[in-house]
């Protein structure tokens, strides 16, 4: 087994003191960020990314830190879901349905510990899935040419447009805005200055960090102003702290099922943790809920969605690492982090940067154990963080975000541009535009244009090359299916809700 040898090597990378420290810090910060309502993995990763870069962390350590934050968020989201009935991040929405009723019954400790356990089991399954499938996918993708890449990126965008947000048109437009932002700056092929308005600060293009912090920190801060709850009523995690063997057996198969389904959904571009947890909750409800206890504090309804959101987060790494095409907003930000280090994710990554890839995967196993240890005995500490008032939290987020952006180029221009983009993002979000497609478009913009131009250069301008191979045709068909099927489902649902007269 080649993969096992590589994984073993990865453990050697992940077990260096600095990388262990990063996994620990990331797990802790991730759990906190995940637990805080309003802040999710994408915000946590976005805010920490420029800091990691400014600290001159090596690429592997930075990625380990960000991945630990991502996984930590999927753990942390359940804490506020169970204790204050508000999901800490989008993936924990389903956990409120049974978690909060359990907590009200005085079983908060059991709900918290069983969900940490199912998160752990799911993450182990998800990371194992990465070990098994990622190298094979990368190997297959080596055969991709520019035309295949272009079609693949269109497919990723189509998935997002079909599944994220209520209006596919708005999702598509958000994506186009991201792609358009990426065209700013000198065109690499011809040396033409595009959309720079004669400003030297823009000739290199808009900095990735400026866009990410603007969209996911500044606009988030503006949205937090509208949250009505402050501090909130935190239920005491009293009573039994640990689940017992009977409860573990009772939830076991549901956890395994949800982990596998969540992983598969996570690998698909566009569908992330929130869709995975919703789907598995419905499946478990239909399969096992014979007495109608789901929604009234059924322990299986806590374990299943928490398993799914963790394995989905693991699965989401696969397209990013193997194809260089991220499938979610959070992995898009991580891919942007890699490009800051001049590392291009894609099929060559497994060959050229084995330390990075396998170190990352190994660190996810290690981080997962850290997260389990943090999230059962120390859960009270995180619960107390939910009482930190917004009048302290928000300025702290603002200050750290500004430090991160300033650290990149040390210019006032970047700070002002970031604030402007944040305000723009805030208005877009008020109009129900999703942000994940925008950042995906921004990350993919350059690659998409380059691959399109390269493909057409190979064919001397003949567009047939874009749908000239089996792989491209398959991807185009898949893209159309991903766009049309959710539309049809939505149309059918709407027609059911509004009966024709």
């Amino acid at each position, binding site marked *: 087994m080649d993969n096992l040898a590589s994984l073993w090597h990865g453990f050697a990378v992940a077990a260096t003191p600095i990388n262990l420290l990063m996994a620990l810090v990331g797990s802790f910060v991730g759990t906190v960020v995940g637990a805080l309502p309003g802040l999710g993995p994408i915000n946590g990763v976005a805010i920490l990314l420029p800091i990691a870069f*400014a*600290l*001159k962390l090596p690429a592997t350590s930075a990625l380990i830190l960000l991945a630990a934050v991502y996984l930590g968020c999927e753990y942390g989201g359940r804490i506020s879901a169970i204790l204050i009935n508000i999901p800490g991040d989008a993936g924990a929405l389903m956990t409120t349905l049974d978690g909060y009723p359990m907590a009200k019954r005085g079983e908060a400790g059991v709900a918290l510990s069983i969900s940490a356990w199912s998160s752990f089991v799911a993450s182990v399954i998800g990371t194992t899935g990465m070990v098994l499938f990622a190298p094979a996918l990368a190997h297959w993708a080596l055969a991709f040419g520019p035309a295949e890449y272009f079609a693949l990126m269109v497919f990723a965008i189509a998935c997002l447009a079909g599944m994220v947000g209520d209006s596919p*048109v*708005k999702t*598509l*437009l958000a994506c*186009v*805005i991201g*792609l*358009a932002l990426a*065209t700013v700056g000198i*065109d690499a*092929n*011809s*040396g*033409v200055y*595009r*959309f720079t308005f004669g400003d030297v600060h823009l000739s290199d293009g808009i900095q990735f960090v400026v866009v990410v912090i603007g969209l996911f920190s*500044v606009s988030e*801060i*503006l949205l*937090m*102003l*509208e949250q*009505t709850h*402050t501090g909130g009523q935190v239920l005491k995690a009293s009573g039994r702290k640990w689940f017992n063997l009977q409860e573990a057996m009772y939830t076991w198969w549901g956890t395994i099922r949800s982990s596998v389904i969540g992983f598969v959904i996570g690998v698909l571009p566009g569908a992330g943790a929130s869709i995975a947890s919703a789907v598995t909750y419905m499946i478990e409800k239909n399969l096992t809920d014979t007495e109608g206890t789901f929604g009234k504090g059924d322990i299986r309804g806590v374990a299943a969605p928490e398993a799914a959101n963790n394995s989905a987060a693991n699965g989401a790494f696969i397209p990013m690492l193997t194809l260089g095409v991220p499938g979610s907003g959070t992995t898009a930000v991580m891919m942007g982090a890699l490009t800051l280090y001049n590392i291009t994710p894609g099929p060559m990554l497994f060959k050229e940067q084995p330390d990075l890839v396998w170190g990352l995967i190994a660190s996810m196993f290690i981080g997962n154990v850290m997260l389990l240890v943090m999230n059962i005995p120390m859960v009270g500490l995180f619960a107390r963080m939910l009482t930190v*008032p*917004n*009048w*302290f939290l*928000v*300025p*702290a987020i*603002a*200050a750290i975000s*500004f*430090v991160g952006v*300033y*650290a990149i180029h*040390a210019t*006032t221009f970047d*700070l*002002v541009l*970031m*604030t402007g983009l*944040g*305000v723009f993002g*805030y208005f877009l979000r*008020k*109009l129900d535009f999703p942000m994940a497609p925008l950042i995906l478009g921004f990350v993919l913009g350059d690659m*998409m*244009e380059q691959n*399109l*131009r390269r493909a*057409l*250069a190979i064919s001397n*301008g003949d567009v047939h090359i874009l749908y000239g191979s089996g792989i491209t045709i398959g991807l185009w068909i898949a893209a159309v299916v991903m766009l049309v099927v959710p539309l049809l489902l939505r149309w059918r649902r*709407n027609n059911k809700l*509004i009966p024709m007269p």
Partner: protein
Amino acid sequence: MVDRLFAGIWLLLTLGFAAMARTYEAQYSYEPIGPRAFPLLLAGISAVCALWLLLRPKRVAETLAPLPDGGPARAAALIGALFAYAFLFEFVGFPLATVLVTIAIGRLFGGGWRHVALAGVALGVVLFLLFDTTLDVTLPLGALWRT
């Protein structure tokens, strides 16, 4: 309604974007499509999306979710505070700018005067010591104070 207003503005911006993109031409070209094809493609998709949002018949009445009391004024104040922070960051330096912005934002989020002032000083000093002194991320002390 807000949607259509936005779509109208967006359509105009798209036209401006397309007009700019049309002027981009490579001096020497060794590839069939130059620097303007991709932006023009984007402008096309963007225009179609904007037209769709502008013209489609609404089945459901869509309005913005109502803001809590004084919402727009508070949002405007917060936007102002963030822009002020961006402009003051280098000019008066990180510690002082952070104290000021913490007081402004903290008040908007309902903190008491004494609390937010304390929080401001704490954040300004602690973050400066943490990043600049300990972690070697250089932060400005203020161009204003340098003679």
